[in-house]
């Protein structure tokens, strides 16, 4: 088998297509998943930071001019610890820093002016160099005793405005509270998730092609096996049939049809071979006869009578061979589509009469009973020459193969626009298997070629081709010892009465046509291999 580059194989295409698609979809899905998780985690982080900021804001009060940050008295552990501390910073609107967590030392956090409900949150760089997030709220600290009656999360701008209206802001100061927290926990969680996703993605990218490769190899195996089997078939291996024991459903009809085709091919090759062999035999045998006869004559001087005898033998051989060749040529002409149909008026009754007359000597010699069932003056429009050749072959066979003292029947009739002619003879001993082959070229029930030239086994083959050319059908059956050939051809029936009464010219024309047909038939004698040659 010619090696096909792997890149051009169906397997590679499937593999590449599925792998690229799957890995791409997987990558995009993983990326989206990661972004979703990150967003969610950052949102949770921010929510917790915002909550911290709000809780500190609640603990910030104004007493007179003094901003009192109650959380400073009991600093939370998160702000106080030295390792990964959180930071806060409270700035007055004037810009003075009112308070800051101790761990902040001199560093400052950026001023983030969010509101209580929506603290402003940003990523920042913490003073100790860590990455972090900071949430800032700008608010008026509660005056001592005042309740912050706006529950967090339910406050909208309208209400806020309403509250602000009731407060005397002339003495109230605005402060900005910023709380910052390192994001290392968040970052490391995200990094873990990221590595997990990337790891699983890479694993999939390696596993998917591997598994796919195995799967495609496994499921493409029947296809590969079929291709190998087809590749190994040559003209000599046409008897082989394809076998795919584990063929998938889609391949079953393919294999079935392929095997049918192989069968047909094998049969066609066999027939072709047999035909060539038969044709060679058919031409070699008369040549052998001629050569042997001539060489024998020339071995030594002979009498004039001996020479005449040899020459007569050779002449007969030449005539017989010529007849075989003419029939073969006629077949070849029809096969190649060069033979045209030339319709004309044909008096079928007269044609059959004439042909029976031609075989009368044989009919007498073999004591045959001939029954003719043909309506008088049956005239149709068809190709008379070709019909003549067919009928001549049929009657020749019938009179030749009927048993001595048996009977031959010829029937002709019109059936709608079809001419039906049946030629039958008694004494048929052909088996069912032999009947199938009666139309094969050179086929004879008897394998010998004793009658080379006459009954060369081409008559029925030629008849079949001619009838097909005329658009009709020919069938042969062996019915209770009777060999029956029926031909049906489309033919326009010509009313004989009309011809005779109305147009005398037609009558003479028909006669002429008949004569012409006769002449043509005689001219085509070579195409009638069997004529007068048997018996």
């Amino acid at each position: 088998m010619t090696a096909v580059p792997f890149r051009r194989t169906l397997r590679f295409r499937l593999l590449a297509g599925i792998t690229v698609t799957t890995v791409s979809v997987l990558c995009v899905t993983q990326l989206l998943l990661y972004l979703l998780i990150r967003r969610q985690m950052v949102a949770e982080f921010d929510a917790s930071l915002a909550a911290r900021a709000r809780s500190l804001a609640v603990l910030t009060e104004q007493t007179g001019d003094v901003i009192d940050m109650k959380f400073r008295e009991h600093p939370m552990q998160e702000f106080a610890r030295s390792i990964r501390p959180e930071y806060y910073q409270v700035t007055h609107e004037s810009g003075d820093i009112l308070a800051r967590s101790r761990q902040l030392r001199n560093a400052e956090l950026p001023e983030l002016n969010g509101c209580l409900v929506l603290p402003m949150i940003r990523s920042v760089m913490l003073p100790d160099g860590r990455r972090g997030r900071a949430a800032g709220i700008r608010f008026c600290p509660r005056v001592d005793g005042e309740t912050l009656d706006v529950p967090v999360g339910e406050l909208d701008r309208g209400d806020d405005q309403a509250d602000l209206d009731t407060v005397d802001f002339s003495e109230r100061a605005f402060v900005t509270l910023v709380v910052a927290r390192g994001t290392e926990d968040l970052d490391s969680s995200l990094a873990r998730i990221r590595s997990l996703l990337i790891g699983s993605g890479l694993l999939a990218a390696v596993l998917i092609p591997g598994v796919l490769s195995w799967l495609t190899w496994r499921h493409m195996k029947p296809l590969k096996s079929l291709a190998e089997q087809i590749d190994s078939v040559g003209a000599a291996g046409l008897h082989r049939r394809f076998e795919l024991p584990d063929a998938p459903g889609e391949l079953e009809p393919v294999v079935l049809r392929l095997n049918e085709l192989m069968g047909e091919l094998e049969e066609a090759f066999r027939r072709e071979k047999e035909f060539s062999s038969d044709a060679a035999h058919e031409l070699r045998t008369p040549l052998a006869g001629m050569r042997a006869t001539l060489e024998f004559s020339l071995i030594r001087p002979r009498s004039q009578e001996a020479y005449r005898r040899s020459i007569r033998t050779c002449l007969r051989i030449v005539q017989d061979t010529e007849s075989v060749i003419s029939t073969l040529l006629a077949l070849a002409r029809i096969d190649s589509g060069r033979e045209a149909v030339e319709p004309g008026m044909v008096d079928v009754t007269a044609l059959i009469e004439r042909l029976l007359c031609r075989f009368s000597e044989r009919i007498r010699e073999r004591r045959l009973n001939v029954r003719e069932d043909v309506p008088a003056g049956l005239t149709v429009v068809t190709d008379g020459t070709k019909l003549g050749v067919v009928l001549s072959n049929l009657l020749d066979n019938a009179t030749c193969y009927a048993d001595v003292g048996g009977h031959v029947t010829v029937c002709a009739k019109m059936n709608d626009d079809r001419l039906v002619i049946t030629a039958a003879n008694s004494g048929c001993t052909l088996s069912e298997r032999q009947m199938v082959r009666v139309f094969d070229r050179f086929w004879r029930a008897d394998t010998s070629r004793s009658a080379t030239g006459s009954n060369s086994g081409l008559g029925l083959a030629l008849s079949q081709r001619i009838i097909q050319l005329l658009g009709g059908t020919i069938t042969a059956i062996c019915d209770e010892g009777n060999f029956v050939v029926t031909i049906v051809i489309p033919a326009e029936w010509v009313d004989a009465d009309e011809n005779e009464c109305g147009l005398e010219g037609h009558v003479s024309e028909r006669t002429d046509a008949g004569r012409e047909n006769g002449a043509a038939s005689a001219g085509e004698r070579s195409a009638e291999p069997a004529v007068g040659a048997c018996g």
Partner: protein
Amino acid sequence: MRILVVEDYAPVRTAVAESLRECGHAVDDTDNGQDGVWYAVNNDYDVIILDLMLPGLSGMDVLKRVQESGSQARVLMLTARDAVEDRVAGLNAGADDYLIKPFAMEELHARVDVLLRRRYNRRSSVIEVGDLKIDTSTQTVTRSGIEVPLTKREYALLVFLASRAGEVVSRSEIWDHVYDFTSDAHSNVVDVYIRYLRKKLEQKPGWTRLIHTRRGFGYILNAEKSVE
């Protein structure tokens, strides 16, 4: 020598049979397999020329039956089919040689000669018995270098005797191998021809007796002197 020709195509059969008869062989011929088997089984042929395609019984079937009958005949097959498988099938079936139609008559004769030599275990076309020399390719007989002209029948008889030189050959054996069904012969025809042969082969002074009579058994061709 006795040859059977089984060939259904009359021009070939007639020419082959006639030409072999002209060479002095006793030839029977038939155009169908059944008769071919009958002839082959009931007569002691030296060579059978058999067409592969015969009406009634195919050449292969004839070959099989002839072999089953234990015939000593060598078989030359004639066939118009030149496909290798046809030839191989014929040879495998037991044919000794084959010839594809059309063939040269000369070649057929040469092949028949080869088969006859093989039949009598001879290697050369020249048979030598003492100073007697028979060249079967040219059909000439010499004794001590002097050519002895013989008729076809005499020649055929001599070749048969020479082929079995040193063996006693009965009259019926001579009859079987030298005469065919077309021969019009009477009971003592063999003796008559033996006499003719002796006359021609032992005529010159110094030519010793070649054909010896074994009374009650037949004849023996032998260069050595023997008591009659």
